[in-house]
């Protein structure tokens, strides 16, 4: 109805973002800025007392003199700064250093899939890699391992990459638990989790895992290199991507099932 876009696109003359020097400085010097109010408040506190001493004012403050009132207000402000600094220090997010996954880079994609589906799976992988601490991804759907990509464990005996054994995974309690609950399961600290032996294909030092069910037919196993490395926003995005993959994959497998039934 309206495809008259043959003319050249207009050049963009809208606003351009300006650099916020304050924001840049603070995010680069987080620790310094966080404790700054404590230093400022503490120093001011001492300065007020020092000022009273050297000026020969009696140490007892009484509200009748304007000097004492000014000093009390300054002290109140100094304490406000001090307390703000303490609050800032107490809400500092713990930074947990990521580990280097012990394993080998691997990319195994099921060969029967149409190109559009492969590109969608690869897009999901790239998104996870860019936006989260994800280092390994495995997607099993309809009893087939569609993709195993990223870091993969190496078996100690023959130095070969550990390929996902779909049957074993699907019979395991981890898989069945996720399928039963139909909800994402976040193993924020994998080393505390006994079921990790059912995920032998992940690098041995994988720190956190998200198990995302894809409808009732499959699962995405997402391994990360940081303890509690996936934020709640990551979890929400991963659920969304899970729904999307289930929609795309589900339609393909329903169609291909029908075709195979017809040909048989």
């Amino acid at each position, binding site marked *: *109805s*309206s*495809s008259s*876009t043959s003319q050249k*696109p*207009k050049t*963009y*003359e*809208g*606003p351009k*973002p300006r650099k*916020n020097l*304050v*924001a840049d400085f*603070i995010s680069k010097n*987080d620790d310094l*800025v*966080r404790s700054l109010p404590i230093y*400022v408040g503490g120093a*001011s506190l001492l300065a*007020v007392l020092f*000022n009273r001493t*050297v*000026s020969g*004012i009696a140490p007892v403050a009484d509200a009748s003199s*304007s*000097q004492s*009132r*000014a000093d009390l*207000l*300054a002290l*109140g*402000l*100094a304490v*406000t*700064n001090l307390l*703000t600094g303490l*609050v*800032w220090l*107490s*809400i*500092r*997010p713990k930074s947990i250093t990521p580990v280097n996954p012990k394993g080998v880079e691997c990319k195994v994609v099921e060969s029967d899939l149409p190109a559009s589906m492969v590109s969608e799976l690869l*897009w999901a992988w*790239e*998104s996870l890699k*860019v*936006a989260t601490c994800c280092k390994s991804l495995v997607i099993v759907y309809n009893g087939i391992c569609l993709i195993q990509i990223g870091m993969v464990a190496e078996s100690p005996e023959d130095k070969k990459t550990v390929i996902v054994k779909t049957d074993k995974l699907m019979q395991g309690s981890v898989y069945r638990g996720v399928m039963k609950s139909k909800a994402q399961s976040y193993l924020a600290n994998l080393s505390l989790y006994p079921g990790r032996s059912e995920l032998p294909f992940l690098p041995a030092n994988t720190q956190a895992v998200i198990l995302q069910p894809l409808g009732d037919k499959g699962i995405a196993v997402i391994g990360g290199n940081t303890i509690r490395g996936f*934020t*709640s*926003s*990551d979890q*929400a*995005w991963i659920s*969304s991507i899970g729904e*999307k993959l289930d*929609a795309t994959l*589900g*339609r393909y497998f*329903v169609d291909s099932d029908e075709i195979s039934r017809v040909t048989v």
Partner: protein
Amino acid sequence: AQRSTRIFARTENDSPQSKTSDQQLNLSVLRFTFGIPGFDESYLPRWIGYGFGSLLLLNHFSASAPISESQMRSEALGLSLAAFSIALPYIGKFLKGSVVEQRSLPEEGEQVFVISSNIGDSLKEDLAWATYVLLRNTSTIAVLISVQGELCVRGYWNCPDQMSKAQLHDWFKKKVDEIGLADVKETLYFPQYAGSALSLDILPDGTRSLFVQPLVQNTNEPQKVNGFLLVASTAGYAYSDKDRAWIGAMAEKFRG
């Protein structure tokens, strides 16, 4: 085809309100709070700064002359402390893990959903899905994706009422061409957007964050742009690095 209808049905029913507030960094700390609803304690130093600062001035001008030197020193220090206290909430916003502002939905107007009719089904589904999850997973209230001149618009926009979908589609297309957004070559992020004289008047009232992500093509040809993705929010500083990374990942899907 049943599965695709499921996605579409959900996208029409779910409003951005369904997004929960657990979107920020996962911090397992106890936060000191008075627990007064509607009162943001992080602004407390600012109010104390204003209050005590004015009291200092009041004290200065009500005092009987002559004012001693030591009192002047105290007052100078007190006023600088007041200024610093007033600035503290602003500084605190940029610290890692600070609380993000919540978006507010416009009181007037309704959500719109407009999509070009002459595009393939799979692209249509991808566009509908992407605009939906951007509303759900970030504090976006208005999203627009343009792929090779074709549009998908969703959320609250400052657009005329009583227009049919087709008219609305053409209206958006005209506006987008006027701004020249298809020409943007690098990401634009305005965390403190305060309106603009240009044709960005299609953004909803009260927009405080605006993020534009061009869809740069995967070819070797430099700077070949396939379209753009625009999200706007009524919260200031709405898009953290993480949010922008995820929005960039969404944009990857339409790079072509």
